[in-house]
């Protein structure tokens, strides 16, 4: 690039996508990724500003300008090494992080133009490395200390990678038969291909991290027993795995799923390949998904791909929806219908106990509540009925109680979340740390990773001090 003052390209290089008319009936990835040329063009939009506000916007503190500069200079190997100094799951983060509210939200270019497409560049460089088969494993000197990690979701995996790199002997315990937590059972293939997740987890295994599947901590071993067995510290990252229901009549009819069940059947158990895979799923002709978060979008888009007409029912409006805008937009493009300012009050079924319709209350927006969002107020008498075959409850998840139930010394709050120091993840038990959704309630992949990273540092300090 010449020294003369560059004219900034005002918009991000567009991401190539599968055509909505095609992708609405397949489970292939929606976003196709940048080519090398596009990535270099986009990287050149970064002006390498002095104060690098983007880094502050990154929960794991990636040196964003440095890796982007390397992409601009076509030093792709250097760029991926730079990212991996801070983040061992770049192909995942490049796909599912809400960059628009984090790094890209702080981007200097973004003040007057579209920000640099940091997420797309992260994805590009991670995919490039995988395609080259270049993933190298650094030399690690074992330090003789053992750490147990409960849960192999984004938080646990990040902690595992950080501690593995420092030479700890790390064992990750996963309750399901595949590692990855929400990355495997929750986020659909079309948004995050499972082979990408498997590849990044394999890279973590190469650091010497032992991942044990089918191991339900709380049932097989308790936290206390792990400590007795010689683990010097434990990190709990068990996530938000307990589905909430609305407690309305008809909620136990056949055809009402929690989003967790619906997504787990599809993503973990591959029910969309039934009967080649033996786990069944049934959607019928018309599906109502209740909720307005990313999980609701994932469920609605999955139902669509299974051949149903898919409707989101949300009690506020599009402005208050907690889902990423990109996900809402993709859902709309694919043909998901949106019913705003409505919430179910009853689900009706036939004599066989199958769902036939959903009855909704109409709402209007009132004053902002504690969350700052305008709260929905029911409009008396305005009730309507939609015929549906399936209802998917995507109204949130709580912390899974298995670990707290069997760990009496572990303090939890009234919602069942583990109480942990916001900086270090330290819990009420010595040597036991926690982070991610089990502490904060359902949030994002990257926040869980940030918590895992901080906890890894705290665990390292604790164990080095305890020498």
């Amino acid at each position: 690039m010449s020294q003369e003052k560059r004219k900034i390209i005002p918009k991000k290089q567009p991401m190539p996508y599968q055509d909505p008319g095609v992708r609405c009936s397949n489970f292939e990835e929606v976003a196709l990724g940048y080519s090398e040329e596009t990535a270099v063009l986009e990287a050149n939009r970064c002006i390498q500003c002095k104060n690098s506000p983007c880094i502050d916007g990154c929960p794991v503190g990636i040196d964003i300008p440095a890796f982007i500069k390397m992409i601009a200079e076509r030093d792709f190997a250097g760029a991926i090494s730079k990212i991996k100094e801070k983040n061992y799951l770049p192909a995942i983060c490049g796909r599912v992080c809400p960059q628009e509210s984090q790094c890209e939200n702080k981007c200097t270019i973004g003040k007057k133009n579209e920000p640099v497409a940091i997420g797309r560049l992260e994805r590009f460089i991670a995919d490039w490395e995988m395609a080259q088969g270049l993933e190298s494993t650094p030399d690690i000197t074992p330090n003789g200390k053992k750490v147990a990690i409960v849960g192999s979701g984004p938080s646990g995996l990040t902690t595992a990678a950080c501690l593995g790199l420092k030479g700890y002997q790390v064992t990750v315990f996963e309750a399901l038969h595949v590692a990855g937590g929400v990355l495997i059972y929750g986020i659909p293939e079309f948004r995050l291909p499972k082979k990408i997740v498997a590849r990044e987890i394999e890279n973590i295994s190469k650091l010497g991290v032992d991942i044990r599947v089918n191991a339900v901590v709380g049932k097989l071993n308790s936290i206390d027993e792990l400590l007795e067995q010689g683990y010097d510290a434990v990190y709990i990252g068990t996530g938000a795995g307990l589905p909430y229901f609305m407690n309305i009549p008809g909620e136990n009819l056949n055809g009402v799923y929690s989003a967790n069940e619906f997504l787990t059947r599809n993503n973990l158990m591959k029910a969309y390949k039934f009967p080649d895979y033996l786990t069944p799923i049934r959607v019928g002709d018309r599906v109502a998904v209740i909720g307005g978060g990313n999980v609701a979008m994932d469920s609605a888009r999955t139902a669509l791909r299974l051949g149903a007409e898919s409707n989101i029912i949300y009690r506020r409006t599009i402005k208050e929806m907690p889902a990423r805008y990109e996900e809402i937009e993709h859902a709309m493009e694919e043909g998901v219908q949106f019913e705003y300012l409505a919430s179910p009050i009853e689900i009706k079924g036939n004599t066989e106990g199958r769902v036939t319709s959903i009855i909704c209350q109409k709402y209007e927006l009132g004053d902002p509540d504690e969350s700052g969002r305008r709260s929905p107020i029911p409009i008396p008498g305005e009730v309507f009925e939609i015929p549906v075959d399936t209802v998917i409850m995507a109204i949130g998840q709580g912390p899974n109680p298995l670990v707290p139930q069997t760990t009496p010394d572990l303090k939890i709050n009234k919602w069942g979340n583990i109480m942990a120091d916001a900086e270090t993840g330290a819990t009420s038990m010595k040597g036991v740390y926690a982070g991610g959704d089990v502490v904060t309630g359902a949030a994002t992949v990257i926040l869980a990773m940030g918590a895992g990273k901080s906890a890894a540092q705290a665990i390292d300090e604790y164990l080095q001090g305890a020498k």
Partner: protein
Amino acid sequence: MFKIVLKEELAPKIKLFKVLAPEIARKARPGQFIILRIDEEGERIPLTIADFDVDAGTITIIFQEVGKTTDLLGFMEQGDSLLDFVGPLGMESEIENYGTVVCIGGGVGVAPVFPIARALKEAGNTVISIIGARNAELLIWKQEMNQISSKLHVATDDGSAGLKGFVSDVLAEILDSTQVDRIIAIGPVPMMEAVCKVAPGSITTMVSLNPIMVDGTGMCGACRVEVNRQTKFACVDGPEFDGHLVNWELVKMRAKMFIKEEKEALSHRCGEGECQCHRKNEK
């Protein structure tokens, strides 16, 4: 991988496996269950633990071939391995010295009743057992149950073994003549429901529910049941509940959730000669 170290055919279509899973064996308690998956394409199915042996490191499961996955399971041989085997899941049975306990097992349900009855006996209870099946051929674990019971009653639908009739008929007779402090009943849903109708509400009557599950750790809610008008997850709140409080209509209804798909799975790949169905015909 989890090796099948012993396979026995207890009755037509009813098979016993001892599976090598030392860590689970060390932790298993009466009333708990495991979830298994045969292979990569397989579904996760829950099976209640029939016995556990800490020294041998094995978990005993007994299953009846009633659908695609249990059929496939039945084809597995001693020495084969299951891809996934996870547990022990669910709450353990409440074991105390209640006094006199009637333990009832129907069909393949005799298997999970056995370790509970044994633990109740060890806790000092007088254990009266009733086991039943459609006919003598389908009756399992009579000897095992006899060893741990003060008295064992047998009932078959056709009278080919023991009394002709249902286990609930036997229970009614026992209740007429004996002071009973607690009842445990495990078996087909109609049997458990019938037992709860015969047993007075004053006697706690524990049943073990086996609804459709996916993860078995409280994550999906597929196994929703209503107990005392409240929704519970059988996998983490159960599988045992007081049968007097269970909404049986809901249990029966939810069991039919995937009835169409279950049939489709059974016929899938059939007719090509290489399928499991044909292997079965050759046997």
